[in-house]
């Protein structure tokens, strides 16, 4: 028996789309196996079937030689399969130990559980205080709670869905250390990611999915990142064209900007300050939940700030709302596409009206000019290659990548002087992400100033002139991206949260 998990011909169809089509691969005990693919390639559906969340239409699975068909996650856990999800299911108002206990069938007494948590977390280099409130933890620490919760079940196979998207580079190192230790003890790990360098550093084998089918398997250590990417996308990748830009006058100046938390466990912005020049792309990195949303809300005008804190082209705009700022040329694209940047149930035409009325002639004396709105929507769709049957389609019917192209396109085509985008390529496939980055670079080349807030450090290195890190609501001093090393960025991002006690 050399294979721990063996999958053959697994198929799952949803109305209108075959998510998995005859997928087969196998994982040996102790192997770190990567599932590689773009968004929508079928990775999530596949692991949901392995974890018992989704029932396959056809195909078989074997676990440790025996037929395996979990009816629910409980059955999967009983067999020895554990999973750490991309989105955590933790209660912020409860302690670490209480959260762990909630996920157990028969939780032991709290004191016993706490010492067990401490024991496991130390054994695997994941320092964690069982008594702390989850609401006070960083994203990396929350992930440790989820991992420890899984390890308490002593799993034979651990599934990790995009685990590093919320971590600083130092935290990624800690995680990899833990995963390697687990693997050396014989635990197999199924690792889902689209970050190629990580996969090359960590994984022993890889299965590549595209359009729900297995299109290849390889030893990632023998391939370059570019080769892996092209296997994933199925085409040659375009390299973004970073034209020479000359930085002009300061257009946006932020000084002493503070904002109280918008939610109970949200961060406050503390004394944020920077200058942004015409033609500049400034990248703001940081782990989600460190004030990105707050920064966008206050710069876009949704949460106006104290007088004198935000100056656009010499004018104090601190008290202006979003439309006042739009009129002056400051536009924004928030992270959450559905419900914030766009109205899910409304058509693309109506979503063009949402932010377009200040800079495009979409209204006459306050009355909506439907024809003008539709032609603006059509222009966005054509210019940004948005795949949709037409402008009459509801926003929620578009895929994440297409809607993101639409949202970014809507702002770019309004010819902004300053554009602020939050997570511009989050959940977007590689080809669409490349075209969005190119659009931002083209905009800057025309003389606009761009702020890109992103968790994807590679992306920021690719497009930004200057880099600043947002950590617990504080913004570091911006530094030129040229010559900046990944270690330096990691330290700017605050290093590894909660590691002081471990390294001391």
């Amino acid at each position, binding site marked *: 028996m050399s294979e721990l998990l063996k999958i053959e011909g697994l198929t799952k169809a949803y*109305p209108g789309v075959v998510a998995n089509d005859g997928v087969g691969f196998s994982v040996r005990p102790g192997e770190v196996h990567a599932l590689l693919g773009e968004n929508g390639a079928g990775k999530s559906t596949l692991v949901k079937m392995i974890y018992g969340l*989704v*029932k396959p*239409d056809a195909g078989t699975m074997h676990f440790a030689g025996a037929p395996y068909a979990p009816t629910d996650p409980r059955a999967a856990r009983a067999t020895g399969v554990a999973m750490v999800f991309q989105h955590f299911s933790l209660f912020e108002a409860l302690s670490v130990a209480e959260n762990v206990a909630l996920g157990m069938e028969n939780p032991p007494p709290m004191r016993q559980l706490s010492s067990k948590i401490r024991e496991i977390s130390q054994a695997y280099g994941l320092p964690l205080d069982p008594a702390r409130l989850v609401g006070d933890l960083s994203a990396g620490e929350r992930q440790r709670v989820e991992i420890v919760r899984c390890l308490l079940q002593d799993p034979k196979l651990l599934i990790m869905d995009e685990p590093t998207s919320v971590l600083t580079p130092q935290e990624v190192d800690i995680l990899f250390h833990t995963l390697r230790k687990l693997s050396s003890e014989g635990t197999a790990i199924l690792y889902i990611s689209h970050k190629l360098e990580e996969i090359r550093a960590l994984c022993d084998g890889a299965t590549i999915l595209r359009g729900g089918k297995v299109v290849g398997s390889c030893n990632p250590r023998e391939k370059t990142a570019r080769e892996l990417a092209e296997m994933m996308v199925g085409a040659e990748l375009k390299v973004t064209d970073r034209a020479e830009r000359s930085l002009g006058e300061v257009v946006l100046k932020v000084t002493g900007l503070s904002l109280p938390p918008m939610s109970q466990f949200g961060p406050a912005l503390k004394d944020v300050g920077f200058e942004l020049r015409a033609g500049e792309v400034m990248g703001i990195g940081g782990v989600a939940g460190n004030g990105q949303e707050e920064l966008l809300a206050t710069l*876009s*005008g*949704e949460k106006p700030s104290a007088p004198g804190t935000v100056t656009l082209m010499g004018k104090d705009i601190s008290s202006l*709302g*979003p*439309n006042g700022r*739009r009129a002056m040329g400051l536009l*924004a694209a*928030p992270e*959450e596409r*559905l*419900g*914030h*940047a*766009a*109205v*899910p*149930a*409304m058509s693309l035409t*109506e979503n063009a*009206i*949402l*932010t377009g*009325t200040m800079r495009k002639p979409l*209204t006459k004396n*306050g*009355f*909506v000019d439907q024809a003008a709105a539709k032609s603006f929507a059509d222009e966005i769709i054509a210019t940004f290659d948005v795949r949709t049957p037409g402008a009459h*389609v*509801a926003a*929620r*019917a578009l895929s994440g990548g297409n809607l993101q192209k639409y949202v970014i396109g809507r702002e770019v085509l309004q010819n902004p002087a300053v554009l602020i985008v939050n997570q511009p390529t989050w959940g977007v496939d590689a080809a669409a992400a490349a075209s969005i980055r190119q659009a931002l670079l083209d905009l800057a080349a025309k003389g606009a100033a761009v702020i890109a807030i992103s968790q994807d450090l590679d992306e920021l290195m690719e497009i930004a002139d200057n880099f600043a890190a947002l950590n617990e609501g504080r913004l570091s001093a911006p530094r030129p991206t040229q010559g900046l090393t990944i270690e330096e960025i990691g330290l700017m991002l605050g290093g590894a949260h909660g590691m002081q006690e471990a390294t001391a």
Partner: protein
Amino acid sequence: MITLVRRPTPSKLWTYATPIVAVIATMIAGGILFAVLGKHPVEAIRVIFWDPLFGANAGYFRGQLLVKAGPLILIAAGLAIGFRAGIWNIGAEGQYIMGALFSAWLALKIYPAESHWLFPTMIVLGALGGLLWALIPALLKVLFGTSEILVSLMLVYVAENLLAYMSFGPLKNPEGYGFPGSRNLQDYPSAYNAELFAGTGIHWGVVTALVAVIATYILMHRHITGFRIRVAGEAPRAARFAGVIPARLVIFCLGLGGAFAGLAGMFEVSGPAGQVTDSFNVGYGFTAIIVAFLGRLHPIGILLAGLLMALTYIGGDMAQLVLGLPSAAIQVFQGMLLFFLLAFDVLTNFRIRFGRAGA
């Protein structure tokens, strides 16, 4: 096992079909209810829906139809704007009473002086009364974050008590031989909201209701303000991103709904009702909520739904007289209409699938 599958885009067909399906389902369920009460179901449905329009004496009832539909449509048109924005004014009944009290107070104060200015001033005061009453929940919500649902609803009972106090006290007819209630404004030409065309039931309130339907249609479907109101109801964060200031929206929607309800109260007290009595309000403010939803919160739909609800009122009265149905049975019947509408509404956004779950 039945599962609901979300549709990618709302179904156009079901958007328009649900009110009709809901009416049919109400007739069936209502028929069963009437059968249990020992009445012939088909006859009961005929008395409610058919006789007022086409039976004997239909001429009288058709006039009554507009008299009843007018206030329902006017109030519902205002409420629908707030409902679209996710602002739930449940207290139109109270705002209706306050509109009536404000305008009747002026008329009774200057009685018996005749003036062309009286009626227009009463209209303004009626709107103002409803507006101010609705601003109480609006300001409490904006300043203290209270629920406008509870506050507006509770203010209905305050308004009802105020109405009773006025009709037994300050506004009581001094020549009324001790009977409760004010002078009858129908006997006061300057204040009387008379029928404009004999036998049709059309008075200024009905005209105002039609104007309100057209005006709210233009506001909600042609103007950027209506667009922003709809965005606020669909996605509050997107609305803030689009520049909507939530506090202003709350005040606008509640204020407008209150003003419309106040107008309806004013036209009623100066016309069909004639006087301020403790039984002046008959539930138009609550029924208008059903009308608003039955009409899909769309002005044209509200116009049709208002006529339908008015029909159930008149038909219900007839059923009480002719068949001896209890009035509670009629209210249950009207309630069923909203119940079925909301239930079938699920089909607009979801498909039903029979078969195993979760697969």
